């Protein structure tokens, strides 16, 4: 029962025009969540919308579990108006986590847009070891950039309009980073979360440079616990559940 519980909303505040940070007071019996895992969160006591919403673990702090979410539909529109002190049902932590890199490996972490929500706690856990490639549409869309600085070794920013960092995509800056002449070549491991087209390009770059990569996939989800078979992606083993065998997959397993 410890992965299904009622959580009290401690805080639910805007951090951007369309993004909120939710802090949940969770019971002690909940297993410790690991970077890359997710929660199914009740957004509504009624039946429309009906299903819980899947959100990545953003951070686990002394305050509880934090979720960074984008307001973009019926469910999150209701969630954003929920007040401190209200209780909601939560399932989790669920799914696979990012496997930590060995001591001699340099972690390269790719965050595209709201993908930062999934990898932030990994950067935090790797305290000072990770090089982060952070991409967003504009400077204003770089959520939690300041907070991230405290945990990353370095952050390479790219924006679509060039309003911060490099103009272009993070795939371009990752590619440029890896193409620099280096001797000897360091051992890297890539971790990525973001839109599917970005994850596809990152997987191709990882293959080209022979680097292991873990990517976090997304698909419509009903149950979150492996029963409905709704959230599959195509892998070398056929259609595979994002909620159970994922959301974090070895990039080479995915058939794009």
């Amino acid at each position, binding site marked *: *029962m410890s992965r299904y519980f009622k959580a009290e909303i401690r805080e639910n505040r805007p951090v951007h025009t369309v993004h909120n940070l939710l802090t949940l007071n969770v019971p002690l019996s909940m297993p410790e969540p690991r970077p890359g895992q997710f929660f199914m969160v009740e957004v509504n006591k009624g*039946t429309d919308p009906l*299903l819980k919403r899947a959100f990545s673990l953003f951070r686990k702090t002394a305050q509880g579990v934090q979720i960074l979410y984008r307001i973009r539909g019926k469910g999150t529109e209701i969630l954003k108006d929920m007040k401190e002190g209200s209780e909601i049902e939560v399932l989790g932590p669920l799914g696979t986590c990012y496997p930590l890199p060995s001591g001699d490996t340099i972690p390269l972490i790719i965050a595209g847009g709201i993908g930062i929500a999934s990898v932030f706690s990994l950067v935090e856990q790797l305290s000072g070891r990770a090089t982060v490639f952070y991409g967003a549409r504009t400077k204003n869309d770089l959520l939690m950039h300041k907070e991230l600085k405290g945990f990353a070794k370095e952050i390479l920013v790219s924006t679509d309009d060039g309003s911060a960092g490099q103009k272009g995509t993070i795939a371009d800056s990752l590619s440029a980073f890896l193409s620099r002449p280096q001797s000897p070549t360091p051992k890297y491991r890539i971790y990525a979360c973001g839109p599917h087209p970005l994850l596809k390009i990152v997987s191709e770059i990882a293959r080209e440079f022979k680097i292991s990569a873990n990517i976090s996939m997304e698909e419509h989800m009903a149950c979150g*616990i492996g*029963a*409905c078979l709704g959230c599959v992606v*195509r892998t070398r083993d*056929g259609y595979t559940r994002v909620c159970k065998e994922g959301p974090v997959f070895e990039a080479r397993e995915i058939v794009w």
Partner: protein
Amino acid sequence: MTMDLSVRIGSLELKNPVMTASGTFGYGEEYAEFLDLSRLGAVVVKGLSLLPKEGNPPPRIVETASGMLNAIGLQNIGIQRFIDEKIPFLRTYDTKVIVNFFGDSIDEYVAAAERLSSVEGIHGLEMNISCPNKQAGWCIFGTDPRVTAQVVSAVRKATPLPLIVKLSPNVTDISLMAKVAEEAGADALSVINTLTGMVIDIKTRKPKLANRTGGLSGPAIKPVAVRMVYEVFKAVKVPVIGMGGIMHPDDAIEFLLAGATAVAVGTANFVNPRATIDILDGIMAYMKDEKVEDINLLRGAAHAI
């Protein structure tokens, strides 16, 4: 007050009328962490075929007002792996295991039923003749009364296990289909499977599901399901298992009053993994409040004018 919750589905006695709807409860093990499976009247597992099926491409589900559409496409691990990997686990629980199954031809239905009949730990079979996510030709098993009669009687001869036939709501007259299945040898009828539906994305101007159409489930379909259980109850003598949008105990009781002997909880499992237990507890509380000593006294009570 002593309360009798046990019900009979053919030769099968269930300790209570709360079952799981196929496809919403995995193979049982997915939910074992959240509830005691031994409290359930029966566990109905995800539909199986002789050989594994890959299912449909994603997106496979889309939410709708008070419901959801799914087009999973009957993805399953195949009967042999189910027997090897899932049955040993299910056998450790004190509940009835009902295996939902399907085939692509009458021969395949028969072969699947024969294979499942010799396995210890399987207490009943539920025939899926009504999945809305199969290709056009397939749905005749559940919509053409002559084909329904053929496939059900062929399976009837192939298995000594209690045989439940799951009916499609996507027909003009469900009581006719119910009578056909009963005459062909069904011991019980599951009413209803999902209703075929579609959602279109107005930005891409395409259906949201890769399969284009899917099966609608959830509270949105409950009044339709209750009406169909009511009609089927009048039409046949065999027990009816009512399902379709049961979220709360009150919903389950409505189905019993319409004529269901047992109920199956489906989409609610996705919303609340303990939904089956909450519904069972709620039914017991209702019986206590209403001073109903035997659950069978509720069956079809809505028919008495």
